[in-house]
């Protein structure tokens, strides 16, 4: 029950994160054209430890990571579903989207997402990937109990957690180089053990699905960013 109550609270938390005015204002400065921002970046590069070349390299590297992440997250979701039994493994299993406590969901529609500024997108990503590793780690622990023999799933969950952690670091590096403000520290993880196996699987499912969604978002975001910072 505790888990569920946290779950239900999450939309509010999400709206709070999105609706914070001062943060948005702070980001307005980055709603400029890439060229302007490049100028801006070059003007502020004295404070940055990375050169533009290094930033571009970093962006490219992170983009490659998002490609990998996207690929792996899809695999992970499929692998996860495969091991959970009915009803998860049925082809038409499409449970309604459910918020995971502490994890922002990519609620912005794809078009709007692309319309967001780079800074905004990075901010969202940073916030999500600050939380995902912990959530994936929790799922890994739950699956170790629920499906102790699903070693490939365990490996993928571990890899996903590691990838997310790496991506979070890379994002932070980019944001630092671009002098973008970072997100607040992650608020929560999955918390205590769920009361039932089904709920645990369901939560895990949503974590994996959100992980995949965020991977797609990050892939798009870094793809865009990469075009703006060509090597």
């Amino acid at each position: 029950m505790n888990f569920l109550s946290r779950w239900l609270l999450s939309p509010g938390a999400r709206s709070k994160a999105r609706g914070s005015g001062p943060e948005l204002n702070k980001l307005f400065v980055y709603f400029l054209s890439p060229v302007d921002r490049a100028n801006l970046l070059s003007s502020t590069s004295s404070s940055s430890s990375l050169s533009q070349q290094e930033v571009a390299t970093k962006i490219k590297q992170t983009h490659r990571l998002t490609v990998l992440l996207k690929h792996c997250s899809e695999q992970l979701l499929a692998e996860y579903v495969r091991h959970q039994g009915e009803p998860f493994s049925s082809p038409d299993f499409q449970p309604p989207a459910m918020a995971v406590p502490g994890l922002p969901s990519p609620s912005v529609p794809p078009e709007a997402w692309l319309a967001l500024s780079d800074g905004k997108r990075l901010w969202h990503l940073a916030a999500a990937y600050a939380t995902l590793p912990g959530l994936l780690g929790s799922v890994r622990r739950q699956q170790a109990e629920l499906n102790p023999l699903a070693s490939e799933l365990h490996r993928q969950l571990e890899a996903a957690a590691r990838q997310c952690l790496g991506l979070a670091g890379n994002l932070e590096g980019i944001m630092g180089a671009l002098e973008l403000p970072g997100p607040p520290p992650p608020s929560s993880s999955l918390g205590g053990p769920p009361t039932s196996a089904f709920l645990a699987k369901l939560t895990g499912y949503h974590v994996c699905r959100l992980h995949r969604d965020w991977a797609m978002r990050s892939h798009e975001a870094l793809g865009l960013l990469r075009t703006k910072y060509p090597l």
Partner: protein
Amino acid sequence: MAERDPYRAWAVRDAEGTICKMSSRWSWVMNALYISLSVCSLGVSGGLVQSCGYIIPESPVLTLGSNFTALCILNESCLDFGNIHANQIIWKIKNSVVPKEQYHVINRTVSSVTFSDTSTLATPLTCNVLADGQIEQNIYGIAVTLGLPPEKPENLSCIVHQMSKTKFIMTCTWNPGRDTFLATDFRLKSQWPLETLPDCEPQGVNNSCGISNVQFFVNLEVWVEANNALGKAESEHVDFDPVDIVKPLPPHNLAVNSGELPTVLKLSWENQISLVEMELKFNIRYRISDSPDWMEVPPEDTASHRTSFTVQSLKPYTKYVFSLRCMKKDGLGYWSDWSKEKSGVTSEAKPSKGPPLWRKIGISHSPNFWTVHLIWKELDRSEANGIILRYEVTVRARPPLSRASEKYSVNSTNLTLNLTNGTYDVTVTAHNRIGGSPPSVLLIPASNSKASVKDIKAFPKDGKLWVEWTAPDNSVVKYVIEWCMVSDSSNCTAEWQQELGTSQGTFLKGDIKPFKCYLITVHPLYNNGQGNGQSTKAYLQQRRPARGPTVQTKKVGKAEAVLVWKPLSVDEQNGFIKYYTILYRTISGNETAVKVDPSKTEYTLSSLSSDTLYMVKMEAHTDEGGTSGPVFTFTTQKFGKGEIEAIVVPVCLAFLLSILLGVLFCFNKRDLIKKHIWPNVPDPSKSNIAQWSPQTPTKHNFSSKDQMYPEGSFTDVSVVEIEADDKKSVSEQDLKPFNLLKKEKNTSEGHSSGIGGSSCMSSPRQSVSDSDESESAQNTSSTVQYSTVVLNGYRDQIPSVQVFSRSESTQPLLDSEEKPEDNPGGGESAAPRQQYFKQNSSQDETNTDGSYFERAKQVTPPINEEDLVGLAQLQISGHSSQLCGSGPEKNKPESALADAFSPSTEGQILRLETMGINTATVDEIPKSYMPQTVRQGGYIPQ
């Protein structure tokens, strides 16, 4: 206090495995026992187990080479009890006392010891006191551990090995630096920009570590930390994205498929690393399956990520082997290993060339026909481009022959045709599944009027036989090289090969055997004919001949020998015979070698020694050495050709000449000779005495000479007187007074006695035999002693007693009686005398006459002793037979002659010598008719 119990402390030290250098376990136990005893004796006040002191620091770990100070602190209780002072403390390392200069007494209870270099330290370091006089008591001991702080690990490098599709292991290696002698902990640390990752602890090694959780696209910072009791060191930090140091697995499931074209093969494979992780570039290598040499597809053609590739420019119908490897497309990281090899065969194509074509024209039964054997070779695999199914042969006659062209389809590689005399064009094409080859053309029979090649040479090169030639001026379409092995046992069965018209040399393709002679012929073929073949001989490899020539003599002379031999057969030669060596020697002499040109079969050895055994053998030499044949022995001749004739002919001529001269001489002096040799002997039967003798002896056969001298009868007066006297006045025929006779006898006694001597010596037997030959008519039926002459010795010599014998006639002899018939009787004794005479005369310069033979000897060429002797005998016999009819007598006439010509002192000497010899016969005088009177009469007192 319990912590400072030395026993416990030591046990702990030992358990820690520090570098406790106790010499043995036993000594350690003894030491511990001793300590515990000392503790008991001193620590009475503190209970059963109480230490009297302790050392600070306890169990230190020290850096080698640093300085170190230890303190020994005595307990107050002990001080009280044993009245001990710190200046009584003695420090010991193991069992040796530390010099007192290193001590320092701080106060009554504390003594320190200082070591400037810890490398002199060893374990244990003990603190002892001299208690109760000189008894040494152990207070406490510590173990000292020596070592070094870790060095900074160097050369840290990492590589990510792909273990499977999803598993990667990053292995980092570094140089751990010097040995620290201590337990040193190495850790591979790593961190992300925001995240510190778990350390990697090496397992069993100190210079590498493997991390299995490798995250690509996130920069990783790694470094190594080394840690031990003396310090800590950290390597340089290395920062990289693990995706840039990957050694991927090679592509797998390689498949090779032949394409539409006969020159391409399509490869396809699976990459084992995901495209989302990295893009790859490739290296593709391939080789013809039976060749070890790899070819490589240009790397720029395979620099992009792919799972297939089409390899071009391959040979048709050829099996190729492929393998490939990959690495990250941008060149970062490492190449994978080569993949497993996979082979494929290109599809067939038309044969690229016509088969090499040649002919042999055989003898036909009819003069108007040829039997032509067409022969051609199978195409190389690389030229056949598939499986040859058949050959098509076209024979087309050239004008003036009007014969329709004929076509043959054959499966073999030869065709025999019977053709009428003429010129033909022959073409051969090879066909496989795809099509036919370009035709090979040959003109039959090619008129050999065209230019031939020049300067053909053949020699071994690179283990094969190389033929080269100078091309004729005209353009040659191709060359045919024929060759065969020259052998005694088999015919020269020609093999052949064809070369391009542009080539000027080729290796013989075939089974060329070493040590065999090959006859190689090069025919140039032109568009319209062919040139004469030029030949040469060659060996692939030479060696010594199988055997040497068998040498023997054809003729042997005194100083030369003509040797002959048979040349070696081709099979025995094993190479080109460069020269022969004739080796000859006598049994004891050195060997002489003569080089002989190989074209010769005869050689004359000269300057040989005569009459000598020679051993001769012969070696045949190739470039690789020689083999000698059997030894032949021969003996040179003693005389050269014509040498005997050269000796014999002059000798014979000289001999004849001397005989001729002798005869002439004899003829001139026949009167004198007659007087000496066969004087008239008076016939006693006609004497007066005979007339008064009643018993006249039987008639004798008187010679005419006797009759010619009838005046002998007037000697009757003297006969009576001489009877008891010397009757041997030989030379005096004329009647003389007796005293005159005696005088004459005195002067010429030797001469007389010489004759008489020989007479005396004569045996009756000889007399008989010789008397037959004698021309004197004194034929006596029996021999009786006629007289004995006893001579006084001259000076000291004993005169010989000469016994004269004659017929049994009792008549007194006439003074003129001569006994030539007696002389032969003395032959045996005369021979030694004669020899003596010869020797004497040769030694005596004064005897010029006697040197006759010596001169003869000198005149004679000194051939050898035997010759000379033989020659001398020859001369002697010649003389004797001619002059006297009896050998041994020969001397007598000469001496007589000598006497006659020069009756000088020489003659006397000779005579005396002879007499000396005759003395030996004196005692042997057998029976005498008138012994007593003559002997004792002293009638001859000279």
